[in-house]
């Protein structure tokens, strides 16, 4: 199946992950919200990882399986 908008999803995953790590983690640290800081760190990396995962899957699918 061809998903034409996959590139957009990958970029959004990276941008949102980056924004979470750059802004929210620091803000929660300043507000001394430890649980939220930990969660934001995890969620930021989750989004970045999903972006890389999708890119790898797309590369494998389009180069080796199609």
């Amino acid at each position, binding site marked *: 199946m061809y998903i034409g*908008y996959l590139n957009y999803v990958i970029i*959004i995953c990276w941008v*949102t992950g980056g924004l979470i790590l750059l802004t929210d983690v620091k803000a929660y640290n300043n507000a001394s*919200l430890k649980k939220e800081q930990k*969660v934001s760190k995890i969620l*930021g990396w*989750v989004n970045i990882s999903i972006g890389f995962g999708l890119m790898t899957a797309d590369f494998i699918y389009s180069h080796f399986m199609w």
Partner: protein
Amino acid sequence: MGDPKEITTLQATTILISTIIGVGVLPLPLFAVRAGETSAPFVTLTGMFLAAIGLVFITSLGIRHPQKTIITYSQDIIGKWLGRIFSILVIIFFLILTSLTAREFGAVVVTGVLRETPLEVTVIVMLLLASISCRNNINVFAYIHNLYVPMILAPVLIVVAFSLKNANPLYLRPIFFGSDLWNMAGGMLTVAALFQGSFIITMIIPSMKSPKKAIKASFWGILISGGLYLLIVIATVAIFGPEEIKQIFWPTLELARTTAIPGNILQRLDIIFLAVWVLAVFTTLFSSYFFTIHSIKELFRLKDHKVLSYFILPCVFFLAMAPQNILHMYEIIQFIGRIGLLITILYPAVLLLMDFLKSWRRKRNVAKSS
């Protein structure tokens, strides 16, 4: 980072109005006419009543638990795990609703205004706007809705008022039962689904100055938004007639296109209407997005929702792009809308019933022991 209790009854009303009035304005006359032919206004009215019943259930629950939302009091009423499972279903439903709102917006903009712009870009821009706005607290959320309501209501009323001079009342007869009952009942569910944004009241009540007045806000909210929907359907059917409407994808937009302000000041109002419609879509999207992240925050007992505003963005975008084309999108919207009625009407009804039974049993036990 907690939310102060500052929302007034007027603000709660405006939140409801601007949340309900959204993307559904454009295809509403088509949905109603497909179901009821000349009885489209009657179908709209019955759909509005069904939605009002759901709103009464959810508002009554909120008044009985003024410090909590459906995510938290459902765990008190039906148990921790069952409550959590149903809360996850509510969250998933609103996540899908948010994505479909964004997609419908993108589809209209790409078809009607920005024909060269990729669909993905219009959807991303709207979702980004919503996600950035959602990083504020609930009071800012209320101010934004309060600001936009007059801008949404006034132009739509002007379009309806000026268009009525070309109306033919014969197109509205028979008023009742212009089609078979099953068809009309299906249309009633579709129209009721357009009011599902009113579920947001569960999130508003804990932040209201006087939660007991929530029922007043609900009444005016559904009356004004439902009244506007009814006016739009009456005007559209009276001008185009049921058979013509079946050939048009967005009859309300066509209504604005054929309406002129007397004295050749403006010969067509569709661009003004679309500008207003963008505001209406933004407020609807904003509400459903805010409700989704606020609910996730409560489910996982976080103190702040900001981080979630960016986190769910890729997921919402992915879901928004899932429908293959406009026809597929409206099929999904109608299906999800009808399924959603189980979540927005039946689920609160069951919760309210169980809550009543629990408090009745508690009172009886207290009376026995004393």
